[in-house]
């Protein structure tokens, strides 16, 4: 990787920041909890970083293996749990009053 690659990555970083602001400004207050838990799940992409560090290491030492193991577990919990709980929440939002749900409580 040389400086050109690095600067290209910085350009991607800056542009995606602007895209993030543009897209997320339009999310209504009502959906802010799912938004937060959904972006939280997207943040779980760090699990890929953990996979890359371990996967590209030549003869990883035991400490590196332990650290990577914990990192992959944490990242997987973040990504899987995040998407599942977001999906559950979003399924509850209905635009029209639902049919009778007696006995739900």
């Amino acid at each position, binding site marked *: *990787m*040389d*400086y050109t*690659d*690095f600067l290209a990555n*910085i350009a991607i*970083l800056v542009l*995606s920041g602007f*895209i*993030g*602001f543009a*897209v*997320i400004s339009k999310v*209504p*207050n*009502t*959906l*802010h*909890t*799912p*938004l*937060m838990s*959904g*972006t939280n799940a997207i*943040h779980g*992409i*760090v*699990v*890929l*970083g953990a996979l*890359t*560090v*371990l*996967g590209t*290491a030549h003869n990883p030492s035991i400490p590196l*293996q332990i*650290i990577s*193991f*914990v*990192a*992959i*577990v*944490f*990242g*997987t*919990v*973040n*990504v*899987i*749990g995040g998407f*599942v*709980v977001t*999906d559950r*929440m979003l399924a*509850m*939002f*209905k*635009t*029209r009053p*639902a049919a009778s749900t007696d006995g739900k409580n």
Partner: protein
Amino acid sequence: MDILVYALYIVAFAMFIIGLSGLTAPRSAVRGNKIAAAGMGVAFIATLIHIRDTGSWLVIIAALVVGVIVGIPPARKVKMTAVPQLVALFNGVGGGTVALIAWGEFLESDGFTGLRVASGPVLPLVIASLFAAIIGSLSFWGSIVAFLKLQQILPGHPLSVGRLQQPLNAILFLGSVVAAVVVGIGSTTTGAALVWFVAILILAGILGVMTVLPIGGADMPVVISLLNALTGLSAAAAGLALNNIAMIVAGMLVGASGTILTNLMAKAMNRSIPSIVAGGFGGRSQGNAATSNGDQVAKSTSAADAAIKLAYANQVIVVPGYGLAVAQAQHAVKDMAKVLEARGIEVKYAIHPVAGRMPGHMNVLLAEADVSYDAMKEMDDINGEFSRTDVTIVIGANDVTNPAARTDPNSPIFGMPVLNVDQSRAVIVLKRSMSSGFAGIENPLFFGANTTMLFGDAKKSVAQVTEELKAL
């Protein structure tokens, strides 16, 4: 093959952006979340292709299996009232991953010396890794404390060491930066550098704990948003260090989202982010447990009287707060609304941006109870309607209804945008007791001429009112 990996990363981050765009409306949101999840699948496959020659499959597969087994059950079973702590916890483990990645990179590159022989942007990459280490560790420990507070394992009120808090935090921050500089310059031996690197993680971790401990429950929406933004930025930094564009884009999207939410929450409390991080409302006037305020006396009412008032209203507004979540009263409220609607009374829900413990917390609870999305009104949309409303029911909300924020320049929350509940013709406040809210500020609404108090557990009170309504 590397071109394929890169191309798949581009597909993945495009799917993240499309998925997030879906969240702009409830109708498209479920699909949006699924698209984002599918994008994550694409990025995951790309990474597996990238590391296909590794000899560490056993560790990788074992870790993935453990992660899935640990992650899914709480996500499927959590009660909607407990979502804030679960989100804090997931956010925390994500931050922990970033800190551990930085540690792993440090070990793998022999204390970053492995990078040094290569020509290229060594220093920026080392800085990105060290930034990821500091912010990752800070948000891991900060989120764990937020989780413990929300789960009420730690007390919700501010805990601090007083006046020393800010200097102490400054020292911790400077200490972690100094340790990072020592590691970054790389003048020490590998063994000593490891000690310094662990020092970064420890100092940043203590800073995270010390920053969140003094923050009170009512300020939690801001803190959770801020931690969300920080983990996003740390992921983007880790992406830079690993030359992974999907991580860069995803991290920045999360960073942008967290930043927007943090600003919205701070604005809805009329406070600056630094003043919230510097410590909650702690130390201000504490719990006033009297039922009188000078010559004013709060009037208590019964479920039967409340039901009569409601039965003869044309429009009723429900103002939910954290108390509704604590009492799990959302289904009871929906049942009451159904009875009212059957009598031809219009029921709306007025939701303050910081009601509850995270942004949009109340909306999720009401949605769980099948309240229509259209009936949930944002503060600015409904504030004009209170004066035309016959009865407003405040359920477990306090500070967000406090008229002193509009009228009393001496009030600690003066200037904070509030719901103009006091303007409606009658107000019924459901509350467990007369104790003040989490902010410890007295609420003149409770002593208003048109206000009556219905004391007791919110869920039971609402259920009693519903029974009385049915009997009418």
